């Protein structure tokens, strides 16, 4: 037995109790911003520029005029390349005096709004938000306002989409951007376990190998390394290739226990119990048979091609006391790990959170009913459990009332799409957030919702298909997410600066800085 453990579990690589770092050499990744250009030939754009080749005199005035480089004539060519419409500001250029449409002496150029803006996206992720996220992933910067991408809110008509910050005309305290702290401490219990501080108040959500490709997982992991934060294995097991990312991985222990072994618990700094997930609260997990390829089956120790179900709930947990036994088990197996408890948002989510705190968890992770990245029954996505906006305030207030708020980290997920959602979630009472869909959008997801169909994602993100998954290059994928994180952090710093706050922790629970478009906003102490 000892020999087996030594050989197969690589016990020598598992870190001793009192160290913080795994012995496996860890992958190094800088957070430097590098362009990560779109991987498709034609980037979807808000506007489309059409050139009438018969009218065009090839004078080159448009090339000279356009500061964005929409019009390109390659050296040695007489004709123009197809206009790079995705760089175009549209009619906004008229104010800037660089509007090619009116400037063309031959009248050969036309502009029109791209009809696909009505097709791309949905109420929660409108086209502008997807395009803006692509721009962030490409450049590492928030897209210029000239593009007209109103990415701060979606069109869902409620929750974060109707909440705004009450930015003062002048910040109460003038702060430089480098004076603002966006780090987040994850262990508030003072229980002798390590303090873990991440550089941004979010980390990556659990997406198992099987639900997404190996490359997608590794891209997320590299971004987590670069930004000194975390990403989560999901329930599909811990791939060997993930070992160099041990220090930034969260091992998820979910009801199916796929790929969960003592060894995978021992080598990470955070272990997450997943009781439920926002996309299908109360229903457990389901990996469709087509996605259960040979590699996935090996990882999960199952048979190729069969659908894999994670039951709901843990069949060993009937109560908080049982939950505590779970936590004690993991704490015993890994003496340095922090425990995260991921729950969905039922009516009594506040009781669940307090119970989980009393059971010894370090992080309470609320996954709201509108979240999720993988396949889920439509009936569950829309109808079961409350949206995260309600759950945050409910849990935050209850923890405050119970005197436990400062002893536990509250993380929100399930519909967090951009830095504004993160800031709003924190102002409502969370400490930080978990993000998932945005990372996939950064990799080129168009939210066509076909993750569950046949071979999986046609964009090569949420698939294990041998032909589709290689569509994404690992370096490119990691850079896209790193870039997006950079843009998000910059925007978060801007938000804090405008509010005159020195750190993310100062924003926590500051709901007085928010207003709701559907309310009178005249609560005493919360003047509008």
């Amino acid at each position, binding site marked *: 037995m000892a020999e087996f453990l030594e050989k197969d579990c690589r016990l020598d690589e598992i870190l001793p109790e009192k160290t913080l770092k795994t012995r496996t050499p860890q992958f190094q990744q800088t957070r430097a911003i590098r362009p990560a250009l779109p991987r*498709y*030939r*034609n*980037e*979807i754009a808000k506007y489309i520029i059409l050139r009438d080749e018969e009218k065009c005199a090839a004078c080159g005035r448009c090339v000279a005029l356009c500061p964005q480089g929409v019009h390109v004539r390659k050296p040695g060519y007489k004709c123009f390349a*197809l206009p790079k419409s995705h760089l175009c500001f549209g009619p906004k250029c008229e104010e800037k005096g660089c509007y090619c449409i009116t400037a063309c002496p031959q009248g050969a150029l036309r502009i029109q709004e791209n*009809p696909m803006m*009505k097709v791309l996206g949905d*109420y929660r992720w409108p086209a502008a938000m997807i395009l803006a996220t692509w721009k962030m992933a490409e450049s590492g910067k928030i897209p210029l306002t000239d593009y007209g991408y109103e990415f701060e809110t979606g069109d*869902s*008509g409620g929750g974060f989409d*109707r909440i705004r910050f009450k930015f003062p005309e002048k910040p109460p305290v003038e702060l430089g951007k480098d004076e603002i702290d966006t780090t987040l401490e994850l262990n508030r219990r003072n229980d002798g376990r390590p303090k873990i501080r991440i550089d941004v108040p979010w980390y990556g959500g659990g997406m198992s190998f099987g639900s997404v490709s190996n490359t997608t997982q590794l891209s997320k992991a590299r971004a987590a390394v670069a930004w000194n934060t975390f990403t989560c294995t999901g329930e599909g097991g811990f791939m060997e290739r993930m070992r160099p990312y041990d220090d930034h991985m969260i091992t998820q222990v979910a009801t199916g226990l796929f790929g969960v072994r003592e060894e995978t618990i021992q080598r990470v700094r955070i272990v997450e119990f997943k009781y439920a997930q926002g996309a299908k*609260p*109360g*229903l457990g997990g*389901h990996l469709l048979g087509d996605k259960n390829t040979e590699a996935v089956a090996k990882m999960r120790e199952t048979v190729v091609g069969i659908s894999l179900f994670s039951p*709901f*709930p843990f*069949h060993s947990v009937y109560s908080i006391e049982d*939950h505590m036994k779970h936590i004690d088990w993991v704490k015993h197996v890994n003496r340095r790990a922090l425990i995260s408890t991921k*729950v*969905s948002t*039922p*009516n*009594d*989510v506040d009781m*669940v959170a307090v119970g*989980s705190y009393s059971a010894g968890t370090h992080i309470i992770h609320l996954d709201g009913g*509108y979240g*999720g*990245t993988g*396949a*889920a*029954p*439509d*009936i*569950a*996505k829309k109808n*079961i*459990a*409350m949206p995260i906006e309600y759950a945050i*305030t*409910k849990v935050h207030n209850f923890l405050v009332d119970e005197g436990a708020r400062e002893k536990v980290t509250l993380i929100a997920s399930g*519909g967090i799409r951009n830095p504004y959602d993160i800031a709003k979630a924190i102002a*409502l009472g969370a400490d930080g957030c978990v993000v998932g*869909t945005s990372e996939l959008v950064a990799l080129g997801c*168009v939210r*066509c*919702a076909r993750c569950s169909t*046949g071979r999986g994602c*046609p964009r090569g993100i*949420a698939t294990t298909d041998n032909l589709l998954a290689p569509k994404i290059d690992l370096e490119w994928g990691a850079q896209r997410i790193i870039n997006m994180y950079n843009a998000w952090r910059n925007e978060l710093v801007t938000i804090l600066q405008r509010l005159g706050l020195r750190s993310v922790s100062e924003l926590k629970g500051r*709901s*007085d800085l*928010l207003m*709701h478009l559907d*309310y*009178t*906003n005249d609560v005493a102490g*919360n003047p509008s």
Partner: protein
Amino acid sequence: MPEKYHITTKPVPPRRPRIGKYGVVDWREDCARCHNCVKKACIYDRHRDEIKYIRTIESVDALFFDCMGCFSCVQDCTKNLLCLTINPEYEKLGNRYWTPEIIQTTWSQAETAKIPVSGAGYRGRFSGEGFDSMWTDMSEIVRPTRDGIHGREYISSAVDIGQKPAFLATNIDEVVSPLSPILSLPMPLIIDRMPDQFAHPKLDAIIAETAVKTGLIAIMGSEKWPLFEEDADRVLPHIAFYFASGAGMISGEILKKTRFAEIEDGRDVKDRIRELKRIHPGIVVAVRVEMTAEGMRRAVELADGDVEVIHIAADQNGRQIGAENPLFIKEMIRKIHKALIENGKRDNVTIIAGGGIALPEHLAKGVLCGADLVSIELPLLVGLECHLCPRCVEGSVCPARIQEITFNYGAGRMTNLISAWHDQLIEMMGAMGIRDARRLRGDTGRAMFFEQLEEEAFGRIFGKRLQA
């Protein structure tokens, strides 16, 4: 172990070309014939399918729109010619209440009998009107009242129709309380009469067969009794005849083979119920109350008068009929349920709620609001590929060719749809930790209402909610 409720299904493909949401159209004539879109970009082979389809096309009104909306061909087109659009035929489906999404998901469930599954999280509005302004609860870690951990197979979706006595009087070993007849259905669903404008004669036999295959009951006009004479023993236990005011009585032999009947509301309801029970003492009788402005008051009045079943019926979109500011069926159910509880009459009467029940979540939510079961009719029609367009009413050609359907096709599609609804009800009950549909009734503790959540979460932060 009692026999499990199971609906046998098999896929029933559509007769008409599918109407998908997306379509890819060329928008400029400059194709390089590189075939990138056909050979490489589309992993679903939809471009090839389209070519095949065009070769076999029979009528010009049947366009091919089977695109999956992944934008791969659009973004990989060598000359950037392709544009993805929303299929205009898709946008024309249904109406404001019966949205294209509802029509399409109903078609899919009627075809496959499967629960609709998709990825990428929720894509819709935060909340909405009617049933979209409530969420159902789920049970997690701590829930002292939940039924415990169990598999789906242990969840009972059965409900009872009839009066349930508040207590039983016994004399030594004998029950001396008068016991009303009661019948059980395997799920809280009953098939209502098809609205007159959609009542195609072919549908009666199909609906009856669906009721037999699913173990449910279908309500049919009493004048239709001769249709079921031939196979009476098999079919009639699944038929409830509806007696409009002034309708004549049917043969006692036929009536005695049924378990349930419904009568139109009127002054003489008590006499008519008495007459039906005189012929068939074991029958359960419902009174249908249209949800007009007076409907709720009338329903409570009938319950006070010891009517055993009340079928409240809103309009097709779930709204109060003829009211200036119509309430939605959800609110009407809640008000009636609450009034009956306050009167101490709730278990004396079964409430069937109909009108606007378009999706399986409406079934669960209707019961959570206080109905014992719900009635449906239009979803079954939509399951036959109906567009819910007004063309048949206007006398134009039905795009779904309902008049051409076969018996097996119709019964198969309707059975599939009910099976998918049942499976989804079980999913929701499983999430709620409820093991018995009877306990779902009026259990608003397992529901979360928009107004309540907004008040609790945002009231103390943002003040009063402004009226829309």
